[in-house]
């Protein structure tokens, strides 16, 4: 039983890492433009298909491939901001929200149109699928790679936001756009950077998603995107550590829900996750590590 439980915890951590990678982007973007970007989940799909193309071409060593997927996600995220969200920056929240939803629908259908609706197989090289025994637990290499890479990337982003000059500029814009402009900070660049960073992380999550679950399709991003948003809400929208925490809580909760309850409940997995969201929103609307909007000086 303990062994089974540990196995489930490893699975939960892997899934949680993927949620966390996507959730960080939600937080970065919300933090800077107060926009819940529903098209964010679709960058998971874009990352997965980019990775599929690169794996198929079989030209690149893996670390470089990850980097290239990250870069593609960065560019896609920034491009989507520039094309679709730039002109609604000062629009009311509801307008912005509906525009992001429209962009998401457009991206998904454009992908359907170009790539077709058939799911495609996505296989990692044998090295990643090899299984190791660590104590009582038997895990695939990929199950270790995912959390390590996720935490590494999250750490780098956090360091960047807290320490670097551009990161400080992003935080300044997030707090007070007017004052930031008066400091000579280029708002457009800061906003594009937030979308780009978020996009890069989401694309890497897409790469791992494909490798872990074996199949990808044009609509694969939407539900993980929604769940990652739920993770963001649990952790507190706008906070990067919160997004990490929320991602891991949600990943563990979801896997344990499926793993520990009788199998006839497994179909209620998504229902459980959304139920959890509604519960968290009602009990702690600002999330675990969130900042009350009213507190912002």
């Amino acid at each position: 039983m303990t062994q089974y439980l540990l196995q489930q915890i490893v699975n939960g951590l892997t899934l949680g890492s993927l949620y966390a990678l996507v959730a960080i982007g939600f937080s970065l973007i919300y933090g800077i433009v107060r926009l819940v970007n529903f098209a964010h989940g679709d960058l998971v799909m874009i990352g997965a298909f980019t990775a599929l193309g690169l794996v198929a071409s079989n030209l690149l060593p893996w670390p470089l491939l990850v980097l290239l997927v990250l870069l593609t996600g960065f560019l896609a995220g920034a491009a989507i901001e520039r094309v679709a969200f730039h002109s609604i920056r000062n629009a009311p929240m509801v307008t912005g929200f509906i525009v992001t939803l429209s962009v998401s629908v457009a991206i998904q259908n454009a992908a359907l149109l170009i790539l077709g609706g058939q799911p495609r197989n996505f296989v990692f090289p044998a090295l990643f699928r090899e299984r190791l025994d660590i104590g009582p637990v038997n895990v695939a290499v990929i199950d270790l790679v995912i959390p390590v890479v996720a935490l590494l990337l999250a750490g780098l982003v956090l360091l960047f936001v807290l320490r670097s000059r551009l990161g400080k500029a992003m935080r300044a814009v997030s707090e007070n756009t007017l004052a930031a402009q008066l400091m000579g900070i280029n708002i457009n660049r800061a906003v594009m950077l937030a979308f780009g960073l978020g996009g890069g992380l989401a694309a890497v999550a897409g790469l791992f998603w494909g490798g872990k679950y074996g199949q990808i399709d044009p609509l694969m991003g939407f539900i993980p995107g929604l769940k990652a948003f739920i993770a963001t809400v649990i952790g507190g929208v706008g906070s990067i550590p919160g997004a990490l925490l929320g991602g891991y809580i949600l990943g563990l909760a979801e896997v344990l829900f499926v793993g520990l309850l009788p199998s006839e409940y497994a179909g209620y997995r998504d229902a459980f996750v959304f139920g959890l969201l509604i519960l968290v929103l009602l009990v702690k609307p600002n999330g675990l590590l969130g900042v009350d909007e009213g507190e912002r000086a």
Partner: protein
Amino acid sequence: MRLGPRSAFILFLLLLTGAIIATQWFGNRYLETLLALSLINVMLAVSLTLTNGFTGLLSLGHPAFMTLGAYVAVILTYPQARKSFMLPELPAWLAQTDWTLPPALLAGGLAAGLLALIVGAAVLRLKTHYLAVATLGLIIIVQGFANNLDGITRGGRGITGIPRLADVWLIGALVLLVIAIAWRLKHSSLGRAMLAVRENELAASCFGISGFRLQLIAFVLGAIVAGMAGALTPHVVAVLTPKSFGLILAFNLVAMVVVGGQGSIVGAIIAALVISSLSEFLKPLEESLELYGLVQIIIALLLIMVLLWRPRGLFGLREPCIKTVPPQ
């Protein structure tokens, strides 16, 4: 030309009657189905205008209420003889029902309204995108139940062979009823209070208007109509699956309301008719070019353009072509 609301209503009634008679005259089943589904969309768009447009909520939950309403009604009307093998786990009292459509519609609507009352009491405390995600979640939760309660709903395989009980006259009458109710509501003191909440909830509360209570009323009323519309659909197309009413529908309904003007009833009617027929007429194009997804992209781009150029939709709160009497 501006008409009084009563003459506009009679004109609409005549146009509707004409359209129904015309489709039946041609005896074209395809056209009749198309008309029926477009009218159901009008019903949905007007009811979502009531929920979102009047009170400023951002609910995406209509498909959840439609799914519930549809399953309730279908279980009630489904022929007894086939229930025993299609839906084996129905409790005895449900297995023996053999209702006609109107009471089943009512039951579907009430079930949806009840769900809205329970869920709304909890989630309507949430604002904007939080509410949107919570209501999206409601769709996924309801679909999850429909998928997993195999013996009652036949799960993912869906229920087929549903009697086509919904004739277009009945749907037309219901559409008129829904429009009349929404119109009366908008121009009543309750409706004005809802609009006040939408414009400025804090200021409204200073006049003793409880935003929460009004939003709950609007949410439940919208859900009842959605439940009935959901109940009608499988009785037109003869099939019901857990995915019949999903996220894309939620999006398209919001598109109709936003394009129409978030609060304009005539706007919602026009937008619903335009978007439904647009997607129907573009479908052959989509199929001949094998560009599946094209229609949805067009609707999404249309919505983005409307939001960029006319953030308050085509008509805002106004009712085009109809004289409205200023409140006394």
